[in-house]
């Protein structure tokens, strides 16, 4: 197996490289109500950036807007130097965005192996082979012929994260991966995120579990009522966690 030959040079020190994803002045609406207000952020290759905020702050709406699943959106999204504005969700996925929804989005009528091979390969060099997937997620190999929903919550989360990696996505939009999982499994998910990062894949992570977010991310964006109220690096986030949480009302 000629694996991991494509070494990446952008594993950390993200701020010095050109951003992979840039969101500029993005506003989104649910009918009359404004869910997001002029949100701007960026993610560099191989960087893990979070969106932290309480329920209803607009975190999931932001991920859906970036993915092209939310219709009523203003502002612009640029990925790898090209604009994604006005492009459909499937085109955005083929550009290299990998969506991992908060319900994990595993197909009940597809087996684990089918779930993995459903998305078309978007980048031959970046795509993980099935063998590589199974090496990083051994449990998926054991369960390859199971229907997707016969997996435990943690296994479903791993499958949901493995799916875009097999397709060769270069940025995962990860919506609350720790939600509803036991602490041991959450630690395992954290390991996987660090593993993904070390392979040069960037992550935009939505989290409510702040202590978990502090263990995996490089930078954090605090979201309240649809606006980014503060943007800060991980060490500052960790030292000021308590104060920030109070500020967000979490």
């Amino acid at each position, binding site marked *: 197996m000629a694996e991991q030959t494509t070494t990446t040079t952008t594993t950390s020190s993200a701020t010095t490289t050109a951003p992979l994803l840039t969101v500029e002045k993005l506003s989104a609406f649910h009918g009359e109500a404004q869910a997001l207000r002029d949100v701007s952020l960026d993610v560099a290759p191989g960087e893990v950036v979070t969106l932290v905020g309480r329920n209803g702050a607009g975190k999931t709406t932001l991920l859906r807007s970036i993915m*092209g699943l939310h219709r009523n959106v203003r502002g612009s999204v640029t990925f790898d130097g090209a604009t994604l504005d006005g492009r*459909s969700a499937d085109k955005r*996925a083929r550009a290299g965005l990998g969506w991992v929804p908060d319900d994990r989005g595993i*197909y009940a*009528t*597809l087996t684990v192996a089918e779930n993995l091979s459903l998305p078309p390969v978007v980048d031959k060099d970046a795509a993980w082979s099935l063998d590589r997937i199974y090496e990083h997620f051994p449990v998926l190999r054991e369960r390859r012929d199971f229907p997707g929903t016969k997996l435990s919550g943690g296994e479903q989360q791993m499958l949901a994260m493995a799916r875009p990696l097999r397709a060769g996505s270069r940025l995962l939009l990860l919506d609350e991966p720790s939600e509803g999982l036991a602490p041991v499994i959450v630690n395992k998910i954290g390991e996987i995120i660090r593993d993904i990062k070390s392979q040069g894949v960037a992550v935009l992570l939505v989290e409510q579990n702040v202590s978990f977010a502090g263990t995996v991310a490089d930078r954090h964006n605090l979201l309240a009522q649809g606006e980014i109220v503060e943007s800060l690096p991980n060490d500052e986030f960790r030292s000021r966690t308590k104060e920030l949480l109070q500020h967000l009302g979490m």
Partner: protein
Amino acid sequence: MSAFIQYTLQGLATGGFYALAALGLAVIFGVMGVVNFSHGAMYMLGAVGSAVLLDVADVPFWGALVIVPILLFLFGILVERLLVRWLLGLDPLYNFLLTFGLTLLIVDLVKRRYGVSGLPYQLPAGLEGRINLGGLSLSSYQLFAAFFSVVLCVAVWLLLTKTRIGMIVRASTEDAERTRALGINVGRWVTPVFGFGIALAGVAGVLAAPFRAITADMGSNFIIILFAVVVIGGLGSILGAVVAGFLVGLVEAYGQAYAPSFAQVLIFVLMAAVVLVRPAGLFGREEAS
């Protein structure tokens, strides 16, 4: 006992039409989110088409079984391209109303052209008689219709489970938005899937032609039973559509045999019972709240 086996065969033959048509309905609903009310009219066009082909061009049943589904596939593509497509982004109710209107139009056009009385048709060559099996006398056409429906359902099942196209259709049936977000251009499959679903209704119509009255109105009762089939099987479940189709066919046949005045009611009693025990249908998935 021999009567019971005859009713069972009749039920399986009728159930075959329901299963095939419901399969088409389920695939269209799954991939497009369209509740195709015109499915009954398409079934009727399948039967009327067979009768007209025989009358005008002397095309026998076996020819119709090939030609009519192809024609309906093309007609379905036309309907999707010209009409259904433009309403896909809107509330599903719009396409429901559109296909309802289309049904009225098709039925009335057929009435205008061919009248309200039944069109003549006969049992296909080679299947007119009965087959004697150990003291049982069974209609060879019903045997054929039941067998053919099962084979076609299995073929569609293999297409859906063993091919990449089938995998995409199953994934889209489960969640079209999520499937798009995984990089699949679901829209590209919408037109052929609609045509395919309509063609399946057409096959059901051709199979029904030799032993049902062929009239412009034959689809209106059919579509109501079809909706019951889909509710029993579980909206959006492909396997559910097939199993419930045969189940409803059997219930209808036994009802007609043993309690004729309740035959139609029984189907809806079955539907109510299923919905009470499993609100999402036999094979439907409960919505996680």
